[in-house]
């Protein structure tokens, strides 16, 4: 199935003029994998994905050799983490529509979408703060505590980075100088947000249930 964003590459072909291959009719930007920044973002995601994967490795490595897992305070409280999971999954919906609006170059929709995404992001940051208060362990209590704080800390770093990115893009789409390729930035920010969302699912499972089962 071909979606709009994957419109066949070279939809406008280069043309032969004499000995030259003329590219003057080619578009000046493209979405998805036609954009260089998409590849840059993919590289970033791979790098952070490796860090997340190793955080999970460290969690189970230390769990396997530790006598007390979790610490005396018990497993982390489920409430805020689960609320976070629900909100972050729900945030995919405005994120998806912002992405679509960006591909359609629909500025009013992009602006609205970015504002909604930014609000979701800020709410997630607030809930995340509460989440840290119910981990039931301090980072300097034990290796378990260190691991749990690091796990949540790494994802929080990504969360805050992308919320900041979204806020900057929102400001840009309202106030800044615009050209078509800024819509590509919006679409790519949306793509990165999907990584923040999807990576939370395994991290949530490990953080909250790795200490329960």
């Amino acid at each position, binding site marked *: 199935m071909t979606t709009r964003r994957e419109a066949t590459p*070279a939809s406008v072909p280069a043309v032969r003029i004499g000995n030259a*291959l*003329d*590219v003057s009719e080619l578009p*000046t930007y493209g979405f998805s994998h036609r954009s260089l920044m998409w590849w*840059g973002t993919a590289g970033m995601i791979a790098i952070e994905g490796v860090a997340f994967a190793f955080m999970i490795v460290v969690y189970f490595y230390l769990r396997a050799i530790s006598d007390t897992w979790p610490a005396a305070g018990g497993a982390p409280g489920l409430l805020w983490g689960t609320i976070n999971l629900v909100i972050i999954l729900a945030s995919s919906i405005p994120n998806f529509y912002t992405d679509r609006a960006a591909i359609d170059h629909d500025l009013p929709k992009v602006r609205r979408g970015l504002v909604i995404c930014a609000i979701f992001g800020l709410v997630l940051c607030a809930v995340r703060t509460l989440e840290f208060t119910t981990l039931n362990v301090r*980072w300097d209590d034990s*290796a378990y505590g260190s691991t749990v704080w690091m796990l949540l800390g790494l994802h929080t770093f990504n969360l805050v980075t992308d919320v900041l990115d979204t806020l900057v893009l929102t400001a840009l789409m309202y106030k800044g100088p*615009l*050209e078509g390729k800024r819509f590509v930035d919006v679409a790519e920010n949306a793509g990165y947000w999907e990584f923040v969302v999807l990576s939370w699912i395994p991290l949530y499972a490990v953080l909250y249930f790795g200490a329960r089962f």
Partner: protein
Amino acid sequence: MSTDLEALRDGGGWDSVVAPLLDRTWRDKPGFIAWLCTVDHKAIGRRFVFTAALFFFAAGVMGGLMRHQLAEPDNSLLGPDFYNQLFTMHGTTMMFLFAVPMMQGMSVYLIPLMVGTRNTAFPRMAACSYWIYLFGGLTLFIAFAFNTGADAGWFAYVPLAGPQYGIGRRADFWNMLVNFTEATGLMVAVDIATVILKMRAPGMSLQRMPLFVWASLVTSIMIIFAMPTVMFGANLVQMDRSAGTHFFNPAEGGDVLLWQHLFWFFGHPEVYFIFIPGLGFVSEIIPTFARRPMFGYDAVVLSMIATGFLSFGLWVHHMFATNLPELGKSFFTAMSFMIAIPTAVQMFCWIATLWTGRLNLRSPLLFVLGGFIVLLIGGLTGVMVGSVPLDLQVHDTYFVVAHLHYVLIGGALFPLMAAFYYWFPKVTGRLMNERIARWQFALFFIGVNATFFPMHELGLNGMPRRIYTYAVETGWGTLNMAATIGAFIVDLSMLMFVIDAVRSFLRGQRAGANPWGASTLEWSTSSPPPPFNFIALPVVSSRDPVWSRNEGAPTHVSGLQTSTREGLVTTVLDAIPDVRYEYPAPTIWPLVAAAFIILWLVWSIFSLQGALWGMIPPAIAFIAWFWPRRDETAQGAAVEKRP
């Protein structure tokens, strides 16, 4: 079309009206500020190579000092504490500040030229990565000057580097250096991988890519999957040291071996991302001097990819002396033997190319052939230390020191010297002196073997690595003296190289575009290349584009803007023109962001508050970097074509 509009598009030759237009658009403004702002991959690549060379000489001096100390028994030239700092700084500098940045710097310079484009994909990121590298490396050396040089070995094992035994700030600076260099390495890797996948000249499908480009692609992808683990691990150690976490503290449920896993999961592939670019140099140089296309191109490519994959399955062979399960060790022994296969395949392809070619025995080829021998010896001892029983005998002895120097010098340094002689005329426009080169090669080859071969014997006789002196009764004096004399011969050869490089740069014979008669695209433009690399982007129709092309195929691209820095994005597999791309303009923000990142991380050593608040200045710098300028946006909007 009016003449005005035609003048705005490229595609003409050197004598056409577009040449001065391209030059005006691409050339950096004069002056120091513009010099700091540059995003030209050639300038950034040259800076990487030059800086890495300086770090190499600094680490070489440290090696020389250690050899001086060990030349005779019971020597008291250096004390144990300073010696610990020296071997740690030597290893750390060679691995983190020389080998990887040097190879990446060569890629930053060469890859856009070899794939036929005008800059790297993310030139500002390349600039930023250079500044992080430079400032980060200087930070380590400034700390060293204040008697705070890292002293726990280049792999900084805990607990020696942990909070309990790693007193003072020495290990902190080591951890931060890992952050700086790995951030640099990762940024360059993403940049290079994107150029290779998306910015190749039309027609340069994957199966027509030069072998050094393949080597850089494999290396970049390896870096993306290996470097995060050491960066992540070093930060865990740092948190144990500064925030009171217990990742590596057995008393609170942590584990010291965890660090060894995290380090070597990076550390073993590290050897290969120094070594695979070296193989790539060899695979470029051999066809040129054998005057025929590479024998077994497909086999060489597949071998490099296989090496990349297998290198991730070897890390435990650095940990054979720990209490890991024996069955696990057997697996890693098998993997260590297996990786010899793709390396051997490449060696046989090189031999076949040389065998069937008409040899032109110039200095680059001499270094390649010398490297063969040194690498072969290193590979053979590798098979020895790859097996558990032998490794247990020689673990942490000079046998390992001999092995690793043979591998790295044969696999990386000889090919790198070959690459310097090979591409020097491209970068400077002048040839180096062939006679001096031959002398330098002879001294280097003799010196390297004189230095490191005796170390095999010393290791078998039981001399441990990382000791600052030894007693007369051990009988290790003679071989150590031989090694020290060898080191002086290496120094002499390096001195010759530097003098000849400076002399040739100033007064060498003019090289012309293609002095060696080579086949890849960088030789199709002038030496040194103009700021815009190619007067018109080439179109490729064969694997050796300078030697042969398909009659009737187009020769070059036309129609790119000359008023802005425009390039061409092509498809991943077949390099079909897809989108035009406007490169970002020069700016000071990458430099500012790099400086703020350094300040943040150094601040975080001294205060946890610093770790938090220090993030704000880099964030501001990144926003300023991203925020588009009105004039540039207006210019872009005026000529944009929607997809």
